[in-house]
């Protein structure tokens, strides 16, 4: 950058100092909770990471080791320990002995999920707070090799790609048509706004629960609706087992996603359409262009910046699909037909404890998203019409 002249210089450097003071809170939080984990995601991907429970600070010590050892060996909580923990706000009834070894016991407080490690060393017994320790061991590219060999990951990547490849363009196309319709309407926009905005802001867990009910095979709304429509045409309709038939789980996710984002995207496109200068339409009318030509040659090109924006954010957003799967299917779906990449990462890390492996998988996810975004920014954006 161009540095300021000497005379302006002093003010500039003071401003720089002041600016960073004001930016400090933001940079501190983002630095610690976004940038640092981001770098770590790459680092962790070449490590084997496992948790183990380690003894933390001492909360109680005693020399009455014989009584304690016999009581604990029988799976009971020693009186003295119960009293000591009661002072820390732990109810006696919530405590149980989770692990019994020769000179080491682990007790757990069910209410807080806190564990305590009791260690005997000769005559002395110490009660430690249990904390999580992390064991890291460098394994090079092993994690990546294992992820790529894992048929589940291939399936997850394929499922996610299908979901994105269908839902993103479908949503955008429908949103474009919807915005065009809305652009014609003079009245009723406020009501429509409410209808299209609600799916977008309601808690995803709650709304997915509603869809689970809609997709119910025997009593669900959707099958009833499809059956009714089929009836009008005299066609036969076999009830679709949306959530238990591997062929239908992905369509179920896609329909729900289109429903959630179509209105929101239409509103953004509508805002773009209403910003189009009326003179373009006047000129087209003078030239005798038909409505369809006007739409194709003016309306659509003029909202390409909005479409491009929506394409990027919905691509990134769709690749991250997880909650929908967890709530709608209560798992990866029949025959893992709805196993997605984030679901894979989630189960590998938080169910099986393979944190390094999960990091490798999420780095791959990032690489895919990054490559797609880069492709869009370089290739697709050339086709976007920006008005000067």
């Amino acid at each position, binding site marked *: 950058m161009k540095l300021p002249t000497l005379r302006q210089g002093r003010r500039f450097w003071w401003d720089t100092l002041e600016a960073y003071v004001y*930016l400090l809170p*933001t940079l501190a939080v983002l630095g610690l909770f976004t940038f640092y984990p981001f770098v770590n995601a790459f680092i962790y991907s070449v490590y084997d990471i496992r948790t183990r429970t380690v003894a933390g600070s001492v909360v109680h010590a005693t020399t009455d080791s014989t009584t304690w050892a016999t009581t604990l060996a029988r799976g009971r909580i020693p009186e003295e320990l119960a009293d000591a923990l009661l002072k820390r706000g732990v109810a006696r009834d919530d405590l149980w002995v989770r692990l019994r070894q020769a000179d080491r016991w682990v007790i757990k407080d069910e209410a*807080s999920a806190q564990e305590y490690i009791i260690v005997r060393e000769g005559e002395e017994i110490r009660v430690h707070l249990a904390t999580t320790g992390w064991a890291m061991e460098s394994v090079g590219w092993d994690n990546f090799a294992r992820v790529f060999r894992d048929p589940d990951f291939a399936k997850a990547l394929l499922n996610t790609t299908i979901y994105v490849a269908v839902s993103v363009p479908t949503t955008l196309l429908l949103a474009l048509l919807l915005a065009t*319709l809305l652009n014609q309407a003079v009245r009723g926009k406020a009501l429509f706004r409410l209808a299209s905005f609600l799916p977008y802001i309601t808690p995803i867990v709650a709304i997915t629960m*509603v869809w689970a*009910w809609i997709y119910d095979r025997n009593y669900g709304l959707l099958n009833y609706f499809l059956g009714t429509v089929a009836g009008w045409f005299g066609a036969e309709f076999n009830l679709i087992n949306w959530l238990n038939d591997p062929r239908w789980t992905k369509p179920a996710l896609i329909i729900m996603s289109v429903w959630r984002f179509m209105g929101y995207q239409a509103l953004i496109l509508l805002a773009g*359409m209403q910003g189009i200068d009326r003179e373009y339409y006047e000129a087209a009318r003078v030239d005798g262009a038909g409505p369809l030509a006007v739409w194709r040659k003016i309306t659509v090109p003029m909202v390409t910046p909005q479409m491009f924006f929506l394409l990027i954010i919905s691509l990134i957003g769709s690749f991250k699909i*997880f909650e929908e799967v967890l709530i709608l299917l209560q798992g990866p779906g029949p025959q893992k037909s709805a196993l997605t990449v984030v679901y894979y990462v989630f189960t590998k890390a938080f169910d099986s404890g393979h944190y390094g492996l999960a990091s490798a998988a999420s780095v791959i996810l990032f690489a895919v*998203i990054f490559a797609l975004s880069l492709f869009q920014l370089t290739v697709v954006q050339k086709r976007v019409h920006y008005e000067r």
Partner: protein
Amino acid sequence: MQRYRVRADAYLLRRGAGLLVVYALLLVVAVIMAMPLLWMLSTSLKDLVQALRVPTPANWIPNPAFWDNFPTAWNAAPFAIYFWNSFFLAVTTTVGDVITSIPAAYVLAKMKFLGRGFLLGLLLGTLMIPGQMLLVPSFILINRLGWYNTYWALIIPWTAGVFGIFLLRQFFKTIPDELWDSARIDGCHRLRYIFQIAVPLVRPGIATVALFKFVGSWNAFLWVIIMTDKVGLRTVPVGLRFFMMDIGTDYPRLMAAATMAIVPVLILFVFAQRQFIQGIARTGIK
């Protein structure tokens, strides 16, 4: 030159028949959009027998309305705790986010300093990072900080956000520089100027940021199930999931619980529709 106040958009299909088709189509779409939520409401007011009837149009209206699902759902799980947690977290993270975003946005909008362009690029770049990629490293970080199963883990990481900074930055840009010049001559400190003079001028922007943050926080799910496993720290969405695992397919009660989770967002939306729309309109503009 005289400007006609005719809608540019009314050009394509202005005649009656065309417009009628447009409205008919829009009506169909609006009904489809609203249907799941109406269906939720309808089911929540039925008993199990009513809910399993064929959903003919006549059966949409619960007859008689069965209100018991709400109290039984509320009492079947510690929803009071869930609601309190969601509310508490939404308020604290919103306040935190707004307070950190205001000076950051102002600085990036109005001051010239070393590294400004770089910082803007960096912040914009964070929008490209999929949050799910950070789950594992964040989980390890939170554990190392000793924050697992604490409110800290649910609050502090969310007290800064790029969305708010960029939105507020656009608002601050519209304030003329002369205002700050004259304030400075009067001996006003910059921090005081930002919070006492500039902030009231961008109040709509702040309302928008706060709303989106509040709703986002209210809906928080994945982060909460990873960073905590205590009943006492569950938010409404997390509580809903456990409720669903508990009671299975008792749909009337599930729908009652879902309705309770959605109502606060709904109320907020109705009262602050303008701010939501503003947020949307702004995001679409490059």
